[in-house]
């Protein structure tokens, strides 16, 4: 089976409070970085996986997101599989 490199990105849904992002905004401001309007923090997962095809890899990653990688109550996710 071929091996794929994939990246999963998980972000907070719009409107969900992001205390970390807010704290980072503040810290950037006090470090003198002007012009930062917003920071939202998310997660990435770099996954190396074996799958029959690229589509199969993608499908499996989507399932991983639904089951574990993302908390779909408050987060959205995106999956990218390198060819």
């Amino acid at each position, binding site marked *: 089976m071929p091996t794929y490199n994939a990246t999963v990105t998980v972000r907070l849904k719009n409107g969900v409070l992001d205390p970390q992002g807010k*704290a*980072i905004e503040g810290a950037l401001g006090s470090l003198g970085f002007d012009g930062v309007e917003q920071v939202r923090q998310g997660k990435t997962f770099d996954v190396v996986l074996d799958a029959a095809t690229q589509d199969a890899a993608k499908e499996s990653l989507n399932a991983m997101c639904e089951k574990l990688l993302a908390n779909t109550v408050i987060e959205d996710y995106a999956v990218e599989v390198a060819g």
Partner: protein
Amino acid sequence: MKTTIIQFPGSNRDRDMIAAITLISGQSPALAWHTDTTLPDSDLIIIPGGFSHGDYLRSGAIAARAPVMDAVREASEKGVRILGVCNGFQTLTEAGLLPGALMRNAGLTFVCKNVKLEVANNTNPFTARYAQGEVISCPVAHHDGNYFADGETLQQIEDNGQVAFRYAEGTNPNGSQNDIAGIFNTAGNVLGMMPHPENLVEPAHGGIDGCRLFEGALNMLETQAA
């Protein structure tokens, strides 16, 4: 001997530290706020435990970039003793005053319990009042205490005798490399440690083995300390 305790928004063992220093030295410590650019004249500067800035981004990361840390760095260059406990240790590594980094605990959860600590190097004033190899029971309470340094750095730390404390008797609570619980800088005037000696200074805490660390740091004579 004068002590200054640095406070960041989100520090929460600052009060424990103030109480411990006051009890042991008989003097209340001076306090410095994260935005201060100068520090009172001090012999010992302490960065206490807690969740400075919520530990958002990385534990201690935002605190390490606060204005007061420039003053701490300056003091450290002058040889003033600096102690970082828990979040203070994380802050010192983030500020580059100590090598390595403190990663998420291997078990991934916050852990609060007593561990066994072995004194790995007692040739420093901070640890001089312990016997080499002495094992004490001491509380830990942290989420990111998993000490990591790259191979070369780790080797140097070991070779230079920079390891102050190690978790002993299989009680490593966080997966730290080489069971490292606390380290000195190369000059020996900066100590960072995850365990909480400030919660081990009264019989009511279940033991007073933490006192000797502060007595050493404050150059207190044995008789004074008794």
